[in-house]
């Protein structure tokens, strides 16, 4: 008897094997999301939005209603759905380009308004689909197609600290965490909490997932894991950054 790796129940079998490159982290993030959906029993409630970028390859990934939108615009589409039908559980799934560059104003505004949606952002430190250009999350010194000599922090700044930014601008009731595909169990826990937070009607929920792109990183298996586990975590701290609860009253304010 061969033991099959557990496939989330809400995955769409017809669309497997999926379309991501071998070794891509997107599949792992979607697996964590699928497990969270299964455990919460919300497959019939989820409306999943995916961005442009490699995330668009997830359009038929799940047996859940899905809308694949424009680059950076997944957050407002899911916001619009949720505002019009508060019974759904809205998930906006995007890359670092989609969330921190072209769609940054939507992320900031949805966070500020404490939209009752869950945003999941896959941070693979570059633009995957368009062939490995520099992203807001590209690391200092990291070589990409548009930073061939390495990201120069003097001209291009430091990588965007997305969850930290979202935590800083959200109010009570928001949930913010950063997970990694190197720890799927923990990532699933974060995503599950982010969904539960939306289900409880608390506020905006945001999970960044550190992820791999061996194709554009031009890394073999070993180097891929080294990059995501060691190099990336130097700048991007994994863990829960904000959990719902009353804000602490600070003295003297």
């Amino acid at each position, binding site marked *: 008897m061969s033991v099959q790796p557990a496939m989330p129940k809400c995955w769409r079998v017809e669309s497997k094997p999926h379309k991501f490159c071998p070794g891509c982290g997107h599949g792992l993030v979607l697996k964590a999301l699928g497990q969270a959906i299964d455990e919460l029993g919300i497959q019939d409630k989820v409306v999943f939005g995916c961005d442009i970028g490699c995330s*668009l390859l997830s359009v038929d990934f799940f047996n859940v*209603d899905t809308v694949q939108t424009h680059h950076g*615009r997944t957050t407002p589409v899911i916001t619009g*759905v949720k505002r019009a*039908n508060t019974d759904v559980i809205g998930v906006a799934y995007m890359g670092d380009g989609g969330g921190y560059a072209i769609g940054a104003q939507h992320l900031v505004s949805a966070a500020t308004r404490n939209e009752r949606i869950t945003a999941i952002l896959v941070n693979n430190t570059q633009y995957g689909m368009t062939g490995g250009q520099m992203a807001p999350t590209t690391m200092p010194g990291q070589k990409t197609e548009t930073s061939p000599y390495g990201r120069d922090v003097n001209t291009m700044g430091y990588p965007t600290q997305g969850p930290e930014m979202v935590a800083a601008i959200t109010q009570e009731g928001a949930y913010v965490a950063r997970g990694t595909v190197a720890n799927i169990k923990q990532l699933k826990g974060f995503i599950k909490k982010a969904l539960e937070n939306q289900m409880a009607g608390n506020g905006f929920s945001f999970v960044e997932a550190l992820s791999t792109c061996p194709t554009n990183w031009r890394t073999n298996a070993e180097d891929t894991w080294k990059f995501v586990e060691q190099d990336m975590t130097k700048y991007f701290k994994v863990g829960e950054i904000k959990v719902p609860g009353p804000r602490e009253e600070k003295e003297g304010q």
Partner: protein
Amino acid sequence: MPEKPIQGEKRVFMTGNEVVAWAAVAAEADIMYGYPITPQNEIMHYWTRMLPKYGRRFLQTEDELSAGFTTAGGVLAGRRAFTATAGPGNTLMQEPLSMAEAMRLPVVVIVQQRGGPSTATVIYSQQEVTMTTLGGNGEGLRVVYSTATHQELFDYTIKSFNTAWKYRFPTFVLGDGYQAKMRESLTMYDPASRGITMVPTEPYVGRPGMPGVDREPTHLRNTYNVEEELFEVLEQYLADYAKAAPEIAEYDAFDTDDAELVVISHGVVSRACKEAVKELREEGYKVGYFRPITLRPLPVDQLRDVAGKAKQLLVVESANGQLDRLIKEAIYGCTTEMLSLFKPGVGITTEEVVARVKEIKG
């Protein structure tokens, strides 16, 4: 159940933006998403004042990209959703409207045209014709009603929701700064009292049942892998549009049968043209009046018929030939002389139209 906003018929005197808000309430619109821009702001002002009374919703977004995409989201959730914008906001709105075209989302947009290009004036123009009819990357699979009076703002705002949901093409009501801000009398009515049934809406996502078990999941996309795949989809869309176009197209005309010169205009400019044609007729000039109410699709057959009979066509617009280009394309091959009175970003009076016709006729 909240009471009906308008019982039977009601004679009122109000601004165009107020009219639009009332029409949207009367049309049972559920939710508006919007971003402030002059001259459409008061649509949001009136809508937000009325919404608690009639159980409607509103979201002020961070920009027009978001207003358009959230409106698309509202439609995806099965709501009669709409937005309103103008000028540079209309420019930003073209991105979400492209997606609405790609997914056949019945998004309704009220455009109150202002001057252009760029931020220009906040007052008036007819310079958003090209963008509203053909904006976005794609083929312009959308419906555009150009209104001339407050009565029409009311009538066509209601109608736009039905056209959008019946044919599933994004639908625009193209007004302008004059219509937005001036007061005029009109009759408001409950659509049902005139036998108008609102086309029912239905959700694209979030339908009942377990996707993959009780029903197929919705997997809407605007991205295609190969050329042929997209071509197949577009072939169907274009066929649907071609079939719907004659049913949707509307126009207004008079005195065209024996006219040597026909004045063509749209929107509020057609009011000046209508008066001018009447005056000129009284003075013995053989002139006629033609006004497309739908700028997309155009009433092509009627236009060709009129153009075929006349010796000259005079296109009058507060733009530098945006309507003119649409007309020329529609009547391609027709050798009737085309003349113009273009005043981009400026209003046009009856006197100016009369003077221009007399100048032509000598």
